[in-house]
């Protein structure tokens, strides 16, 4: 993974949305956002403001919608992972990093 790239895993389910990045690769931490329009828009604002190349791995309908809704400032590659294959945003972020 190049230091300039940001690898992100996003997982959505009925209770909300979880996101993790590999910016601190030794101790990636998942963050939970509410399953509300405000939770979704907060993540959109976060992702759209990144100036580094984005590598996203998403799982869940909401996560896919989010990935397609953003208009990031930097190049963005998105991988769609079937639900059930990964149930952890950190694992998704690691999956995204394998492509970098």
């Amino acid at each position, binding site marked *: 993974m190049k230091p300039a790239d*940001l690898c992100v895993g996003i997982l959505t389910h009925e209770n909300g949305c979880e*996101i993790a*990045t590999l*910016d*601190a690769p030794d101790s990636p*931490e998942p*963050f*939970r*956002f*509410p399953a*509300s*329009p*405000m*939770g979704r*828009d*907060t*993540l959109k*604002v*976060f992702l*759209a*403001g990144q100036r580094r190349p984005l590598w996203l791995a998403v799982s869940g309908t909401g996560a896919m919608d989010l990935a397609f809704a953003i*208009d990031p*400032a930097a190049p963005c590659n998105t991988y769609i992972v079937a639900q059930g294959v990964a149930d952890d945003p950190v694992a998704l972020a690691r999956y995204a990093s394998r492509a970098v």
Partner: protein
Amino acid sequence: MISIADILLPEDVLLDMDVSSAAALFDEVSQTMERWHGVPRAQVAAALAEREALGPTALGQGVAIPHGRIAGLRVAHASYARPRRPLPFGARDGKPVSDFIILLIPERATDTHLGILADVSGLFTDPRFRDALHVCADPYAVLALFRSWRTAAA
């Protein structure tokens, strides 16, 4: 996990601001950041403007989260700013913004950024929190609400 209450100080809470534009609000917040945290005013204003140029940071329901990455910053800083009259800010729901959470984030502090954003979106998603916040008349009441709401809601 870091929360907005961890970094918000009484000096960071600006209520009843007499401003008529987001630029004027950013200018006042920039002055506050320089005075209390030593972050150069011009650097704050430039970082916030640079981020807004990529697209609005309004979340709807009268809430916005302007933020900027600041080179050389050691810790994150936040401000809660409430203009006397809500300001247009490009929200998708068309509502003007009454609650601004302004964040200054160190350049490589993505988890800090996400932690604060997760906390803020969790709080402001709850209309009871927004209503309670609007009743707060001074910075200490605002801080007390931010600190107590999670416990009370749990």
